[in-house]
């Protein structure tokens, strides 16, 4: 492997004078003995899947089997078109598209896990919101995914990207850091600034529990992706402004891992704590599955 942590990733990119995405592409080529064309083509297929899911979520009336989620991405998108928004359109476009993706996921539609299905909205949400601001080429969009992948790769190997192992901070938290770093690269920031964005974005999500109502990847997952995508854009702007994280990125990732280890299992995708254990959360669970499946 060419890099094992963010520090190695950044120094490698600085030494070679190339972006993070290029390091990830070269590692993939070397380690898996594949050509650049093959790797780009595979990533473009993933990009196309994401694009379709976003499109579906903001135009169709998507509804999950349980009926708990669907249609909010579309609602926000339409609101943006017709009203003057408070947060601004680029930020809200990311939020709408992130929610749209997760709603399609909850409806058992086809999505691309980034890094997981429950957190699949953040990266495409941020990516497809850049059109008017940064006007990226198709290649830049594919590179966005390689940069996201590089940071996710470090988190997955050094901490966790599983809600069952580390809580929501490991899923939406990781996705938020990945998207923030990739956005910095797309906007012309340095590899170091990518790492700062990742660190700050993840810091904002530390401790976040995985407490899905009725065990479904719906409530609060869809809205956690909404806030993940907006945090990612804010973190990218912080990094581009030259703001740095006092705690280095690798140590933030390690802190996330240790917090996940210390987290009680009620908050790790068991639907036994947090929002899942609220009276309304329990009521939904009984409505959807009947009282017979009630556990704890």
């Amino acid at each position, binding site marked *: 492997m060419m890099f094992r942590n963010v520090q190695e990733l950044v120094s490698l990119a600085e030494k070679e004078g190339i972006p993070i995405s290029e390091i990830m592409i070269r590692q993939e080529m070397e380690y898996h003995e594949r050509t650049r064309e093959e790797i780009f083509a595979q990533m473009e297929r993933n990009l196309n899947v994401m694009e379709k899911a976003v499109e579906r979520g903001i135009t169709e009336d998507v509804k999950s089997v349980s009926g708990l989620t669907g249609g909010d991405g579309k609602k926000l998108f339409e609101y943006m078109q017709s009203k003057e928004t408070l947060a601004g359109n680029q930020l809200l476009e990311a939020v709408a598209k992130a929610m749209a993706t997760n709603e399609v996921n909850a409806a058992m539609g*086809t999505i691309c896990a980034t890094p997981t299905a429950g957190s699949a909205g953040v990266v495409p949400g941020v990516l497809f919101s850049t059109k008017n601001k940064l006007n990226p080429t198709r290649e830049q969009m594919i590179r966005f995914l390689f940069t996201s*992948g590089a940071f996710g790769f470090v988190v997955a*190997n050094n901490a966790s990207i599983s809600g069952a192992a580390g809580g929501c901070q490991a899923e939406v938290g990781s996705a938020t850091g990945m998207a923030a770093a990739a956005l910095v690269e797309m906007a012309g920031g340095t590899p170091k600034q990518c790492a700062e964005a990742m660190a700050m974005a993840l810091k904002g999500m530390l401790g976040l529990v995985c407490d899905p109502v009725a065990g479904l990847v719906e409530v609060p997952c869809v809205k956690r992706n909404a806030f993940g995508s907006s945090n990612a854009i804010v973190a990218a702007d912080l990094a581009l402004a030259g703001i740095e994280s006092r705690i280095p990125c690798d140590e933030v990732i390690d802190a996330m891992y240790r917090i996940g280890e210390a987290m009680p299992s009620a908050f790790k995708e068991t639907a036994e704590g947090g929002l899942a254990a609220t009276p309304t959360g329990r009521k939904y669970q009984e409505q959807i599955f009947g009282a017979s499946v009630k556990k704890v």
Partner: protein
Amino acid sequence: MKYRSVFDIIGPVMIGPSSSHTAGAARIGLVARQLFQKEPSWVSFHLYGSFAKTYQGHGTDVALVGGVLGFETFDTRITESMKIAKERGLNYSFHEEEAQLDHPNTVKIRMGDDHQEMELVGVSIGGGKVEIKELNGFELRLSGNHPAILVVHNDRFGAIASVSTILAKHQINIGHMQVSRKEVGKEALMVIEVDQNIGPDILQEVEALDHVEKVTKIHE
């Protein structure tokens, strides 16, 4: 390192809603199906940890059955797998287990037909990636991401060398290899993950070896 490719992170393309509980479950089911080498007539799923608690909500049940039917994580037939199982005459059952295992997303799959039975323990480690921990009582580690073969053989000197010699002759590079046995001199198991796909001719050549009883390809 558990994750070795960028496509473990940006991927897989899958049917929702959960990479660990849906895509990972489908992959474990599919590996079990490939190891059994045909469609079983019955299958029972024993679920542990978070799998046991939330399997219905995440479509883990649907995905496991879909995998056993031979469907990939992105196959839209997964959503219909209970119906398809009934049409094909596959009997399935689910059992929620109380035991706490190392990883919260663990499933034990038993399957069989009139002639044979098989038992496998799989873990969904996150992001759609899986590991196979146990096969018919043998402990093993199998990621399911590389072409791999399983060789059931007698625990004798030279058995491992003879298999690797054949692979070397065909310029097949071994990425990971593991040998396990229950008792000295009895039945043993080799798991070999390789970089290139292994053709049927090579499998036959390995199967023809002394001390080798059975060879199975588990992944392309």
